[in-house]
């Protein structure tokens, strides 16, 4: 399978990428690692007329300690998140989840910004940044704006980004509590999660339980009210809108959410 013809532009700076995006508007797509976009283009599910390659913007690839938070360049690869000593200490949830994305070859190419901007509800990192209360930084023609992870995911493959905006950075507050867990249920190792759960402290986020990553609000409220983890986990499917597909019915996904939240809370508690 070969993508339909397109015009390829290679941006050598963020400004150049933004100029190209402004020029070509909705006909253009940014290409980072390409592991979400290229498969869609090969299947003709995406038919951009213009591809703007941002893969060489080295200043968008970094992991930095900024005191009370960690900043991640949007082009930081899953492989780099997985093996970062800084993240292993400060954001082990993110390092662990990044290490479970796809397979080693995919992690050598795929980027956190690409994963978030693609906004596949079955992807791991959108739920992880939601559980971590991250802030996403986008640059556009009128400057830089910050978007809370909770406001970023608008629907299936939809984000708050405008077509002429580029996600440049993710800021993640250092968690107050060391309790975390990442649970991912798949049939085969490299598959997307049928359901996944990210736990950080008392925050619980769900992978693939709706059109966007979701916070398990009923679980969080129950925990805040002093419920035992197992009782709280029983509420994991409340407020979710899981889809049915070849992998699972909606009932089965709801069952998995309850089981995986219980496991996640238990594992997180054991780390305290």
């Amino acid at each position: 399978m070969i993508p339909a013809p397109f015009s390829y532009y290679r941006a050598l700076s963020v400004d150049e990428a933004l100029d190209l995006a402004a020029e070509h508007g909705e006909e253009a797509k940014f290409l980072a690692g390409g592991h979400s976009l290229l498969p869609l283009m090969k299947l003709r599910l995406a038919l951009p007329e213009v591809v703007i390659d941002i893969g060489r913007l080295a200043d968008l690839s970094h992991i930095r300690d900024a005191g009370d938070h960690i900043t991640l360049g949007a082009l930081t690869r899953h492989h780099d998140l997985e093996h970062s000593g800084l993240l292993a200490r400060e954001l082990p949830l993110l390092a662990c989840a990044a290490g479970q994305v796809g397979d080693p070859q995919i992690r050598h190419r795929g980027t956190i910004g690409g994963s978030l901007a693609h906004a596949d509800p079955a992807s791991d990192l959108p739920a992880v940044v939601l559980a971590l209360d991250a802030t996403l930084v986008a640059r556009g023609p009128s400057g830089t704006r910050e978007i809370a992870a909770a406001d970023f995911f608008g629907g299936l493959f939809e984000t708050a980004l405008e077509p002429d905006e580029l996600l440049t950075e993710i800021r993640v507050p250092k968690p107050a509590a060391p309790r975390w867990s990442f649970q991912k249920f798949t049939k085969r190792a490299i598959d997307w999660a049928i359901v996944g759960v990210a736990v950080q402290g008392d925050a619980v986020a769900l992978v693939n339980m709706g059109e966007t990553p979701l916070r398990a609000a009923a679980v969080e409220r129950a925990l805040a009210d002093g419920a035992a983890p197992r009782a709280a986990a029983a509420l994991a499917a409340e407020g979710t809108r899981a889809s049915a597909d070849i992998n699972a019915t909606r009932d089965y996904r709801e069952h998995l959410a309850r089981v995986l939240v219980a496991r996640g809370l238990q594992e997180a508690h054991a780390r305290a």
Partner: protein
Amino acid sequence: MKVEITVNGGQLATDVEDRMLLVHYVRDVAGLTATNVGCDTSSCGACTVLLDGESVKSCTLLAVQADGHDVTTVEGLASADGQLHPVQQAFREQHGLQCGFCTPGMVMAIVSLLRENPHPTEEQVRSGLEGNLCRCTGYHNIVRAALAAAGPAHPRGQDEDRPGGGVAP
């Protein structure tokens, strides 16, 4: 667009269509046909090559993305006098292949794995080969080949020396 890619040590400058995939570049432009197209959806790993020393799936990369970079295919592993790479030698000795279709990708994935983690445990080899499928299901001997190529594990184990199990960015 014109791309200059170093393939197995030799530089090649060619005009390619913007949409050409790296695997087709390797097979049709560089003429190196050991790299196979399997699933063509970045699942099976048959098309695995090294890009700047790291395993990638060349069916999910544009040739223009590799412009200015180094690509290594399985043809580039053996030395000029024909001496096999240790991973190739281990595949031969451990019977790591049956039909052979997945083998070039398996070998390249293992070369990359051992570069990042020279003495992996069996479990690390198995998870490190998540992205490569063998439809003959010959996994046991493939894992044995990887472990044989790595040599004996570090006596103190991996985790002590390698927080996170790999290289820091």
